[in-house]
């Protein structure tokens, strides 16, 4: 708690105007990203995990509106002018998306893309940019960066492309990297490789937000994990505590649904039912209809966040605390 957060999100809501009413994608989220940490944001599709950060960066779709507050190093992002958001996106926050092909232009060589990404906006001279690009390609584990410089995106494998995309996001030297499902489109072997890169970058002092639907991938990378469900953070805790002793039943259920190599092989425990649809009006706890612990109270009133030490959870009937801290 000592350090001021790098990104402080408070009371953030995101809504979309759509035919047949307003869709609430994010329904009031408070979240701090501390400098130097890797914060994982985990949730199913539709949980609002991506929209939360797209809203901070001013990248919502046309019909989206964000209210609340998100401060990057003390600068308010929500509702700030487009010009300011452009500098934030261009220099202070790097964004990596799920599909590495989106980040790279097919007809330009890798090197040119990396260099122009910063020289076009006058952030660096060409020679500086080139040196930095080579350094970053090495840092993301690309063999022989010099020769990769002259290659086109289609000449690289999916995993290489994703790592080049990470290098590109890091070119301007942002203080924060937001990686939105960076490994979902990749093979497990390549996924392991990309995670390894993120881990190394974090060890080098970079602040990372890792957005994913797969709790398993965050175990080895994240310092803290925020679990989102239907637009709210239902649990936020340090990684070890969350995995060893989750307090929210949804976190427990997500953990149980991970296919493991060391568990009995007969049956996986999934989460029955569906998350609430975007049009549904949510009364009480959004997870109640799928929750085995749900009581009457859960269906009536929305649980307020409770904190204990580093952990926060929003549940009327939290699971007992386990043996870990």
């Amino acid at each position, binding site marked *: 708690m000592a350090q001021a957060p790098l990104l402080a999100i408070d009371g953030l809501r995101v809504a979309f105007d759509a035919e047949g009413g307003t869709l609430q994608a994010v329904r009031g989220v408070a979240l701090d990203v501390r400098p130097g940490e890797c914060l994982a944001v985990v949730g*199913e*599709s*539709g949980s609002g995990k991506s929209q939360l950060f797209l809203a901070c960066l001013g990248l919502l779709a046309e019909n989206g509106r964000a209210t609340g507050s998100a401060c990057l190093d003390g600068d308010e992002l929500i509702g700030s002018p487009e010009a300011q958001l452009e500098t934030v996106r261009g220099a202070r926050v790097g964004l990596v998306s799920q599909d590495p092909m989106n980040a790279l232009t097919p007809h330009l060589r890798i090197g040119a893309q990396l260099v122009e990404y910063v020289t076009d906006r006058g952030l660096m001279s060409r020679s500086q940019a080139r040196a930095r690009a080579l350094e970053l390609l090495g840092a993301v*584990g*690309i*063999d022989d960066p010099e020769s990769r410089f002259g290659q086109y995106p289609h000449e690289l*494998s*999916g*995993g*290489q492309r994703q790592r080049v995309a990470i290098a590109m996001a890091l070119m301007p030297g942002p203080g924060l990297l937001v990686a939105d499902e960076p490994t979902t489109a990749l*093979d*497990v*072997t*390549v*996924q*392991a*490789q990309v*995670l*390894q890169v993120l*881990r190394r970058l974090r060890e080098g002092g970079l602040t990372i937000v890792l957005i994913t*639907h*797969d*709790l*398993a*991938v965050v*175990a*080895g*990378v994240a310092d803290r994990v925020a679990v989102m469900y239907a637009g709210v953070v239902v649990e936020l805790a340090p*990684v*070890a505590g969350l*995995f060893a002793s989750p307090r929210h039943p949804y976190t427990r*259920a*997500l*953990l*149980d*649904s*991970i*296919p*493991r*190599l060391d568990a009995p*092989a*007969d*049956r*996986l*425990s*999934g*989460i*029955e039912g*569906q998350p609430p649809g975007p049009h549904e009006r949510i009364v009480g706890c959004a997870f109640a209809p799928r929750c085995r612990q749900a009581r009457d109270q859960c269906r009536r009133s929305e649980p307020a966040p409770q904190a204990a030490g580093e952990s926060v959870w929003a549940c009327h009937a939290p699971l007992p605390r386990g043996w870990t801290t």
Partner: protein
Amino acid sequence: MSTPLLEVRGLRVEYPARGWGGRRGSVVPALHGLDLALDDGRSLGIVGESGCGKSTLVRSALGLVAPSDGEVRWRGWTVDTRDRARMRQMRREMQVVFQDPFGSLDPRLTAGESVAEALQALEGVTDAAPTRQRVSAAFAAVGLDASLASRYPHELSGGQCQRVAIARATIVRPRLLICDEPVSALDVSVQAQIVNLLAELRRRDRTALLFISHNLAVVRHLCEEVAVLYLGRIVERAPRDSLFLAPRHPYTRALLAAVPDPDPGEAARRSRAESPTVVADRLPAAGGCPFSPRCPLAVDRCRIEPPELESTGDGAVAACHRWRELPTAQLD
């Protein structure tokens, strides 16, 4: 021994590399002489990274791709797309679920229509009443509310679409269900639902299953036998327990090591000890073992002489010169 349900013998599939100006001639082999057999009621998992030929195997088993060499046999009959009657019979008994939950349903048909189409095409059921009844039964069997039948794919979630695709494939109770990465595009919580559903349907109908995935942990929950594919070749094939407890091929070990471990301490420990086999960038060797450029155990022999599949005991086979030297205990 009885005839296997599905048998693949020396299957080689090549795609023409069509360059600029439509020049033909050069070919890219996707499968290099594959042998596989699947008995009635059994389940076989095929595991490998993208580009290993998994999908080509599926497509040739379904008769969507013609083999360049070798053959695919269905109940002993060499699949021949020109023999319409036999093909119909085979399709009635062999159905498929694809990876992309939205792409596998026609966006212009409702979920119910897509499932009804299968019934009509495969069993010739066209009357409204029995169709409706069978479709609702199929929806119930995959855990979908019958009211979803009138929805279009874009009105459903990914998991629901995949259930519709499974309903379409299983409504005629096929003998063999082929699943091509059916859960990779889904959320983890939904993956578990679908894996359980497939296991349930398999118990119900005693359907044989050919399950393709890049994630070994998923395969482990569904398959009695697993074949690991690397660049169009089988590098290891073994019964489930033997493969997971005592993997013989370094590539199988790399795949196992890559499965993310949902235990922070363990994951951190493993990441520090990470083996170089995970690096997937290097090109395959011209001669020798195709895995040798990535293999931490590769010696000179591996780069010259391609290993053959040989028995490693317990009904397992592996293609590695050095499998004997690997410790038999599980990886970690």
